[in-house]
């Protein structure tokens, strides 16, 4: 759970830095918010009990982990 929380925070942080970099570019909000929003939702989910239980399911953990890695990669290329 803690690692997913850190993953969520990482996405929010990278998304904001990405947003600063994209300022003035076309569709900048779409690019950066596609990193920030999943990060913020993941971060929030790690603090709410029902969603915590959902995130503890092994397959969900794996999917969330892959999504974090994919979005981190996306923040470098967009």
């Amino acid at each position, binding site marked *: 759970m803690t690692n997913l929380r850190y993953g969520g925070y990482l996405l929010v*942080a990278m998304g904001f*830095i990405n947003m*600063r*970099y994209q*300022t*003035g570019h076309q569709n900048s909000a779409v690019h950066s918010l596609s990193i920030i929003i999943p990060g913020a939702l993941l971060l929030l989910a790690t603090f709410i009990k029902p969603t915590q239980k959902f995130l503890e399911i092994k397959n969900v953990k794996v999917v969330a982990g892959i999504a974090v890695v994919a979005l981190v990669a996306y923040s470098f290329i967009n």
Partner: protein
Amino acid sequence: MLATTVFTLVSQSRVLPKYRSALVMSSMVTFIAGYHYFRIFNSFNESSKMGGVTIGTAQGSFNEAYRYVDWILTVPLLLVEVIAVLALAKAAANSLITRLVPASAAMIILGYPGEISSNTGTKVLYGILSTLPFLYILYVLFVELTKSLDRQPDGVAATIGRLRLLLIATWGVYPISYLIPILVKNPSASQMASLFTDRQIGYTIADVLAKCVFGLTIYKIAKMKSVAEGMKDDH
């Protein structure tokens, strides 16, 4: 930055599980900072034209806000790392975190208006305002935290002492870099370019020291405490 990220991630098995979150936080700090530098290089490339760098907030200009976005996201984590590696009782840890995190955020937020201003008075005013939360952080680290160090293993308290000195030394570079632009009165264009470069170098050195060296010191403390608590020192 990225090398430190890898090191602190792969070193997790060398410390007890309760100290691993401090190492993960350290990895995050250096990774976020590494990403920030990756983007700062992109921004320098885009804003460099005909031997000069355009500075401002418009598209294609280099904007110092980059650093502040990075700092506001990583500096509170640096302080949480210290608390995490000490593995204090929950109430004591929460009390320290709820004081250190808002103070570090206030320190950075108050520095930004002075950073982007070209007016010396504004720079000095916001420099003083952002120093106030910095002094409060020092008070918490040197006075409040000291009360929690009694039960730490031999050598850990001394390393924490060095960590605090490292924090003062590295964080001290930031205000020096911040004040560089006002050191020369009525600078020429070439002097302004030189001052800008000096400030960027100062911030970069401070970032490397405050994030990488700080993170490695956190690793050292986690390792010392793990060994003191019975973990086999085989690395």
